[in-house]
């Protein structure tokens, strides 16, 4: 039996050195809400667990000088909710993060873990895609930035290279009249996995949508950035015709599985419905910004 070792390094360099040296036998521990379940189920048998929560960069939230945010990859949903301004600037991202599991799970689960777990149905991912978040990763060959939508490679897989650790999310500054929202469809009201999840971030000026991004989850092997939906919204007053066009673009982007939680036809239709609802929530919020 392989012996499990645990370490909680104080610096990123130390974490990367140990993580890379241990190769595929190593696992990163952020919130642990996926890792511990996978270990118990026998799906993974790590030889080394690298707990990254003692590294300040990975557990801090900072508002940058330009008004954007840098959120450490291991920041829990509860810590994000307790921040005094994050939820005012990015309410959609916050509501997505705080739909992950229960309050107990939110006390630990992080957006970084949600992304690295590689589930197409991860709630925070479509909202982060809509937000235009950039992910900073660091590995044995240095640091690099990736668009959040380029991180997932398929169910349970990411495009991170061996030995790379997700360090933080950078969310851009917001123009006046901007806001965001996230909605998901689940069969019950709480504690469930998204059948469809959809995030919209947009900017309104004099009643016209001047910028938009749409992230769509649980309807393809990875979370999608739906550029055609954004194009349909930009330049419009979010009238019925524009919303219908954007909804169709979301439905057209779907390549879902057929399972007990939702059929292909159902998920495809719901993607369009959620686009309309989420856009209107984001637009309403944008009025006050």
């Amino acid at each position, binding site marked *: 039996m392989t012996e499990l070792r*645990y370490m909680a390094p104080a610096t990123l360099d130390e974490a990367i050195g140990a993580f890379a040296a241990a190769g595929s036998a190593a696992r990163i521990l952020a919130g642990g809400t996926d890792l511990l*379940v996978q270990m118990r189920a026998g799906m993974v048998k790590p030889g080394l667990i690298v707990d990254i*929560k003692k590294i300040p960069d990975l557990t801090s939230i900072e508002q940058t000088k330009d008004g954007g945010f840098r959120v450490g990859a291991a920041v829990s949903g509860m810590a994000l909710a307790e921040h005094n301004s994050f939820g005012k600037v990015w309410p959609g991202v916050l509501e997505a993060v705080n739909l992950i599991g*229960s*309050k107990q*799970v939110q*006390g*630990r689960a992080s957006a970084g873990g949600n992304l690295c777990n590689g589930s197409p149905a991860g709630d925070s991912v479509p909202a982060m895609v809509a937000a235009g978040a950039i992910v900073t990763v660091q590995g044995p060959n240095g640091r690099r930035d990736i668009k959040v939508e380029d991180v997932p490679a398929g169910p349970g897989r990411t495009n991170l290279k061996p030995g790379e650790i997700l360090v933080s999310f950078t969310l851009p500054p917001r123009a006046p009249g901007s806001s965001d929202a996230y909605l998901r469809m689940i069969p019950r009201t709480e*504690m469930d996995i998204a059948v469809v999840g959809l995030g919209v971030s947009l900017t309104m000026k004099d009643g016209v949508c001047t910028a938009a991004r749409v992230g769509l989850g649980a309807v393809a092997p990875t979370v999608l950035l739906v550029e055609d939906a954004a194009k349909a919204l930009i330049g419009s007053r979010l009238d019925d015709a524009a919303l219908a066009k954007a909804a169709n673009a979301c439905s057209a982007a779907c390549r879902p599985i057929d399972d007990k939680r939702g059929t292909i036809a159902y998920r495809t239709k719901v993607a369009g419905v959620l686009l309309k609802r989420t856009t209107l929530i984001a637009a309403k919020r944008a009025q006050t910004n």
Partner: protein
Amino acid sequence: MAKVHVTTSINGEPMEYLCEPSDTMLDALRGPLGLTGSKEGCASGDCGACSITLDDRLVCSCLMLAVEAEGHEIRTIEGMAHGDKLHPLQQKFLESAALQCGICTSGMLIASDALLRKNPNPSEEQVRFWLAGNLCRCTGYDKIVRAVMETAADMRETAQ
């Protein structure tokens, strides 16, 4: 396998224990620490029966490694009463029979306490959402929700 030495604080008392690196906090609580108030239900973070607080944040002790407690503050159901005096939530749960089989009760109490510390005046909807991570398979939610609402009201009155 080499055991790890952990120094932590549990229910306000300094505490040390030895654990395997793969042990969960729940394993340590119920094993070497002898604190069996936290129950193991699902062991996958779905039922909330093992709820504790870690630095005042509600977490499932089954989803946390025992070694992670190093340098942090843990609170469990054993620390809820002050000596023989029950916490108002415990007293109200008793009086209102806000339980059926009782396996979920310690987790319900810890979660309710964490809610009332954050929000002394929750709506019924907020209570229900907050307790959604605590499964009661005896379908006893109504009495539990009422007990939390009534305790919150009593505690607000006492605080005035």
